[in-house]
């Protein structure tokens, strides 16, 4: 019995020692692993009847009174993308484009943002128009490697990539019919709700 008590005591004390030594190391908090942002894909946002408004924070199309209330972030109209700021809206949304792969754009730039000005949008040249010289003719193709960074009115950052201008996000071949119903926007974005520039 005495031997067991001694053993137990040794075990307890060593554990106690271990625990206290561990807790000493645990005084500095562990670095938090950042939460990977959710990538939302919006398919066929219907802009065929006219301009269509979208909110990145709620991940929903914005209609009716909410538009006038300024509860939107971006607006698609034909081949143009407007932001809720400057001459296009009541908010203070800004945007710029960067080159890279969507998954590899991990940080929103600190500066270099523009808002919409009369006749010159913040988001320009997001697509390539093939015209008559190259097949498929008269086709709007989103520029690969063009990532749109948006700083919303609420000061939150998001990265966005346009996937298609045509209904159903069709596979493009040289025989693609440019008369395919267009102004159906397919795009994906990642929205950083915590207000930091981290876009991983």
């Amino acid at each position, binding site marked *: 019995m005495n031997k067991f008590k001694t053993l137990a005591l040794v075990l307890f004390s060593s554990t106690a020692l271990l625990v206290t030594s561990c807790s000493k190391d645990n005084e500095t908090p562990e670095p938090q692993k950042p939460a990977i942002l959710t990538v939302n894909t919006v398919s066929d946002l219907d802009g065929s009847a006219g301009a269509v408004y979208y909110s990145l924070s709620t991940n929903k199309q914005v209609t009716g009174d909410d538009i006038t209330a300024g509860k939107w972030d971006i607006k698609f109209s034909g081949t143009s993308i407007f932001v809720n700021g400057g001459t296009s809206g009541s908010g203070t949304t800004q945007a710029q484009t960067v080159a890279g792969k969507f998954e590899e754009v991990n940080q929103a730039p600190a500066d270099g943002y523009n808002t919409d000005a009369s*006749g010159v949008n913040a988001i320009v040249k997001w697509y390539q128009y093939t015209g008559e010289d190259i097949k498929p003719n008269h086709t709007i193709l989103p520029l690969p490697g063009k990532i749109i960074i948006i700083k919303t009115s609420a000061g939150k950052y998001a990265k966005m990539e346009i996937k298609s201008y045509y209904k159903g996000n069709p596979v493009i071949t040289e025989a693609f019919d440019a008369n395919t119903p267009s102004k159906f926007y397919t795009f994906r974005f990642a929205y950083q709700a915590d207000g930091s520039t981290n876009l991983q």
Partner: protein
Amino acid sequence: MKYILFCLLIALTMNAKAQHADTLLTDTAKAKKLKEVVVTATRTNKTLMQVPMPVTTISNKEIKNRGLVRLNEILNEQTGLSVLPDAHGQGIQIQGFSPDYTMIMLDGLPLIGRTTGILDLSRITTNNIEKIEIVKGPVSSLYGSEAMAGVINIISATPAAGASGSVSARYGTNKNADISLNGAYATQRLSLSGFVNRYSSSGYTLVPESGSATVSPFYGYTLNGALGYKFSNRTQIKLQVRDYTSTADNNFLVDNDRITGDGTEKTLNASAGLTHRFSDKFTGDVRLYHAGYSTKSLLINNTDNSVYDETFFDQNFNRAELQGDYKIINSLRFTGGVGGQDESVKATRYNDKKTFQSGYTYGQADWTPLKKLDIILGGRFDAHSVYRSQFSPKLAASYQFSDKFVLLASTGKGYKAPDFRQLYLNFTNAIVGYSVFGYEEAATELKKLQDQGQIQSVLIDPATLQRLNAESSTAYNFGYRYKPFTGVMWTVNVFRNNIRDLIDSQPIAIKTNGQSVFSYFNIHDVYTQGVETDVTYNFLTHWTVAGGMQYLEAYDQSVLDQIKAGKVFGTDQVTRETIKVKKSQYGGLLNRSKYMANARIAYQDDKTGIITSVRAIYRGRYGFSDVDGNGIVNRDDEYVKGYVLFNASVSKLFLNNQLRLQLTGENIGNYKNPGAISNLAGRLIYAGVTYNFKQ
């Protein structure tokens, strides 16, 4: 140039009779090939072996033997040349340059009529051609604008002495009919010749379900007349007129509406040249040239009889030129000239009548310091009323190691002036809604659209637009001609062209309808480089085996720089995810094959009068579309697959070589690629007959 040639031909007592009639020329022709004279490279006579620039010649005999009746047909079979399919016409690509950069001449005078830069070669009949000379490398030092990739000169035949004439007809697939009537009369002083040619086809369609023809039915006439008169041994005059008219019967479907209407095209060339030999050393020429080109088209929508499209295009070109040729000493010869040009264009798509005036002067020294060494130094200065003046120098040298081997090297500058479209276009596509404005019109037209409230955003402020410069190039050509043993001729040419200021269209504004407004800019720096080789082997009197190959790289320098900086992306074909484009994936400029080759076997027997040949033409794959939207060719599905075409012909001569019966086949393998290649109609078989009248 023809006029100086004529004088010298008489002096050398060459047999002018031989070139015209459609007959066999065997050993005499082969012997002549060795001492063959080329005029286009230097605007003077030079023997083929000595010319320090890469030159290809095609004889009348070769054209007739192959049974090819239009210029695009015969050029398509040459090493290093490729005829591109395009809605605006069959143009020729040389050393990786688009058709806009090659000047096509008839007897040394430029043919006009390029609505979008391409000169449609199917307009030109091969009837009555003595030979075709193709000079590669920039020759702007002699010919000015457009002679950037090279020049193609069609030399008309000289009539044989006495009265002669011929009638020939070819008929076959797609109801393609070509009929020519030739007549000539020549004495010691006078030579008179003329011909009429009719070319027609019922067209063809590669996609029958579309309800529209790929090529509409058409018919065309060429009328040609030439008069030459020798006042004396020293003075002669040459007059030539050519008229070409063609009408196409358009009929196609657009969204269930049938559109029909005629499109007509007319060209008129008239030239007068006077040559006077002042002394043994000095000859002078004066040349007057007028060329006119017009097109008209009226298309009606049959559903509601509304006008679908109505366009016209009228171009006029006038030139006066003086040239002197002075032989300072036996080894030094100087050629110089001065000229002035007046050009005008009026078209539906240009605001009003536009006119250009230009003047130029050129000089060339041809120096043979050693018997084996020939050096040519020349330059041309062009002053123009709209764009900046150009100076195009050229330096070329050939060293003849022996009768069998000659080394040649040349370097020079070429340029191409901005064309009417790039300067003056005012066009809005009614269906799609985009607009294109030439540089001179861009600011005013954009303002008009802005005042109409049609502009959504401006991408490039027209006030910052720079005046368009001519596109220019610096080229290096190096190679040799080698005759290792009798009957074999082997040529090699390595080339590099650095092209600056290539003009292309770019959007300057976005309209409220979402479409763009384009204008033209000098944007690109492009280079083409490669190597070309050609071998011909004549053996056993009757046989010829020949082949050639070209390797070409054509790249946009700024794209290469951007790829290097890691700024170019594409989309993966399978995963549809973004990828970074590597240099090895970049396909270079559109419509250029990296590999092109041709091979030929021909047999000719005077005794039996049988002439036959089989030719194969290989086009390696070429970039054609951009499906991932990055503006360049980088994915395998953006290429047109490579292919081989087989052409063959067999003819038999009768009645002492006066009658020829011929069977011609083009694309015998019936290769088609309806989505990408509109000028491959499938297998074409023709039967032809030619009869020569001889006094």
